C-alpha cells in the first residue's frame, strides 16, 4: 500500500455526551479519507440491551450524527458509525437510519448510498447451536452458555468483526451504520478496504476508538486524527490544548482492557508487545511494530441481557451521630422487618442498602472500616417481580430505618426522608451472555443492505 489514509474520530461512545464541535471543525481542515465513530458500550450496563432501549438522549445522537453526516457529505468521504444506539441492536440501526434520513431531508442533501449491516444471529440461532452440542464459551471466568442462560435472555447481539464493514466500504457506500461491532473494527474495516495491512489496521482501530481519551491532558469528546501508512500509525490530537504523546498512547493501550499487550477481536489478536512510540511533532505520535495474529478459528462475541425485576428506590439521610455509629444495627433491624412480611431477602425479592459514607462504592472491598462522616446517605433499593411489590418493599425498607429501635435521644424518627414515595427506576437486568461462539463465515450472519437516501422515490 503506497497511499496513506487519514481518518477523524470525533467521539468515543458517540452521544454518551455530545461531541465537542470546536476540535472537530479544526480537524476537518486536514484532508481526510473518512469520519468514523463507535456508538456502543457495555459500560452502561445491561439495561439498554435487555430492554432494547438506549442510554443516550436522541437529541444528542442527532447532534453528533448531524455534524458527522454533513461533514462527510460535504467532503464526499465515507462516514461509518458502528454499534448504533448504545447497544448495537438491529432496532438501534433502524433508529440511526431514521435519524440519517431525517437529517438528509432537512438539509436537502444530494442523494447518497447508505449501507446498513444488521445481525442475523438471534436466540433461535443460539438455541439450535446449543441443541447441536456446540460449545459457547464463557469469557472472564463465566461458565459455558446453558439453555437456562439463553432462556433468561431478553436481548442479545453478536459482535461483528471488520469483514462485513470492509465489504460495505468496498461497495462504495457513503454512509455505513452497523449493529454491534468491536470498537476497533469500525476503523480497521476502513483501513483494510483502502489496502492497509491487518497489522496496521487493527491497531489503528484500537488506538482511535475512544477519540481524545488517547491524548493528554484528560479531555473527553474531542476529535483526533489517525493516519495509517505502510508500517506505521500516527495519531494526532485536534484540540489546541491536547497532545498525543508516547506516554498517552501507551497509556491508552491498557485503558479498559485487562491486558496491555494483546487485544482479542473477531478473527484474531492485536499484538502490541513490540509497539514503539515516537513523538514526531508537538501534537502527534507515531507507532510502529504492532502486529495482528490471525486466529485459526473465527469467533464472535455474544452479549446478552435478561430482566430480573422491577426496581424502586428511597433515599434517606442520617445525621444523628448515635445512629451513624450504629447504622449497621439500624439496617439489620429494618431488614428483619422486611423479612417478617416478605420472607428471605434474595428469594422472591432483593433489598439493598447502599450506605454512602460507609462503603456503598467498594462494599466488602472497602479498607476504611470506620465511618468518618457526620452524615450518611442510604439508597434503599428494592427489586421484585412487580412494581407494586417493589414499591412496598422499598417503603418498608426505608420506613423501618425511620422506626429502627436504637439507643438515641431522638424519638420522632430515625431518618431524614429525601422522599417518602418510592422513586421509580428502570427495571433491573443482568448480563446473561459474555461469551464467544465459533462461526464459519465472518459475513453471512451480518447481512448488508444498500439503499439510496434522498434519491428518486420508488414507485
Amino acid at each position, binding site marked *: 500500500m503506497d497511499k496513506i489514509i487519514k481518518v477523524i474520530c470525533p467521539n468515543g461512545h458517540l452521544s454518551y455526551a455530545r461531541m465537542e464541535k470546536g476540535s472537530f471543525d479544526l480537524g476537518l481542515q486536514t484532508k481526510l479519507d473518512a469520519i468514523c465513530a463507535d456508538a456502543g458500550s457495555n459500560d452502561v450496563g*445491561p*439495561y439498554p440491551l435487555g430492554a432494547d432501549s438506549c442510554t443516550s438522549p436522541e437529541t444528542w445522537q442527532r447532534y453528533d450524527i448531524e455534524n458527522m453526516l454533513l461533514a462527510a457529505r460535504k467532503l464526499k468521504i465515507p462516514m461509518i458509525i458502528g454499534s448504533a444506539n448504545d447497544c448495537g441492536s438491529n432496532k438501534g440501526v433502524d433508529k440511526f437510519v431514521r435519524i440519517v434520513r431525517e437529517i438528509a431531508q432537512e438539509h436537502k442533501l444530494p442523494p447518497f448510498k447508505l449501507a446498513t449491516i444488521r445481525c442475523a444471529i438471534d436466540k433461535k440461532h443460539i438455541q439450535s447451536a446449543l441443541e447441536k452440542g456446540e460449545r459457547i464459551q464463557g469469557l472472564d471466568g463465566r461458565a459455558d452458555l446453558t439453555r437456562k442462560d439463553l432462556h433468561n435472555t431478553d436481548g442479545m447481539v453478536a459482535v461483528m468483526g471488520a469483514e462485513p464493514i470492509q465489504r460495505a466500504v468496498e461497495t462504495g457506500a457513503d454512509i455505513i451504520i452497523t449493529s454491534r461491532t468491536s470498537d476497533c473494527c469500525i476503523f480497521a474495516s476502513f483501513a483494510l478496504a483502502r489496502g492497509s495491512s491487518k497489522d496496521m489496521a487493527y491497531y489503528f482501530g484500537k488506538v482511535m476508538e475512544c477519540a481524545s481519551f488517547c491524548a493528554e491532558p484528560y479531555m473527553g469528546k474531542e476529535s483526533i486524527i489517525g493516519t495509517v501508512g505502510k508500517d506505521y500509525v500516527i495519531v494526532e490530537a485536534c484540540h489546541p490544548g491536547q497532545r498525543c504523546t508516547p506516554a498517552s498512547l501507551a497509556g491508552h493501550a491498557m485503558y*479498559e482492557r*485487562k491486558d*496491555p499487550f494483546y487485544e482479542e477481536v473477531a478473527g484474531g489478536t492485536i499484538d502490541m508487545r513490540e509497539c514503539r*512510540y515516537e513523538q514526531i511533532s508537538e501534537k502527534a505520535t507515531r507507532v510502529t511494530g504492532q502486529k495482528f495474529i490471525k486466529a485459526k478459528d473465527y469467533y464472535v462475541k455474544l452479549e446478552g441481557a435478561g430482566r430480573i425485576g422491577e426496581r424502586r428506590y428511597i433515599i434517606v439521610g442520617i445525621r444523628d451521630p448515635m445512629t451513624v455509629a450504629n447504622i449497621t444495627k439500624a439496617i439489620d433491624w429494618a431488614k428483619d422487618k422486611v423479612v417478617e412480611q416478605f420472607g428471605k431477602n434474595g428469594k422472591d425479592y432483593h433489598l439493598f442498602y447502599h450506605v454512602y459514607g460507609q462503603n456503598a462504592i467498594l462494599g*466488602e*472491598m472497602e479498607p476504611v472500616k470506620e465511618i468518618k462522616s457526620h452524615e450518611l446517605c442510604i439508597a434503599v433499593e428494592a427489586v421484585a417481580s412487580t412494581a407494586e411489590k417493589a414499591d412496598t418493599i422499598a417503603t418498608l425498607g426505608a420506613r423501618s430505618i425511620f422506626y429502627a429501635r436504637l439507643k438515641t435521644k431522638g424519638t420522632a424518627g430515625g431518618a431524614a426522608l429525601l422522599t417518602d414515595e418510592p422513586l421509580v427506576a428502570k427495571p433491573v437486568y443482568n448480563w446473561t451472555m459474555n461469551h464467544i461462539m465459533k462461526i464459519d463465515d465472518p459475513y453471512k450472519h451480518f447481512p448488508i443492505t444498500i439503499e439510496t437516501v434522498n434519491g428518486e422515490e420508488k414507485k
Partner: protein
Amino acid sequence: MKTYKLNELAKTIRSKNAGPDNITFDIIFAEKDIYEKVKKSGAITKETIARLYSAPENKIVTFVEYDPGNALKFTFQRNKSNGTLGESDLFGCQQYGPLINYEVTI
C-alpha cells in the same frame, strides 16, 4: 528510603471496567526511575493489593508490569457484573480510591 503516598508518586491512578465482569486498575508513573523504584519496592504486588482490598488473590486475574507505559496494572474479577442487581459502580471507575493514600517506601 522514604515513605510516600502513591498519590505523590504516580501520574495516573484509575480503575475502569474491562468488560462487564472485570475491573482493571492502572497506576501510571511519569518517570521511568520512579516506576522502577516502586516496582522493586514490592509495595504493589498481587499479594499486597489483595490484602488492601480484603480480597482473595484469585480475584486478581491479571497483574502486569507494563514497562512501555511505566505502569503497574492489575485486574479484579467483579463480585457483581456492571449495572446488574445490587451493583453500585457502573463504570468501575471509583474503585481505585484506596490506592490514592496507599503508602509506598522507596
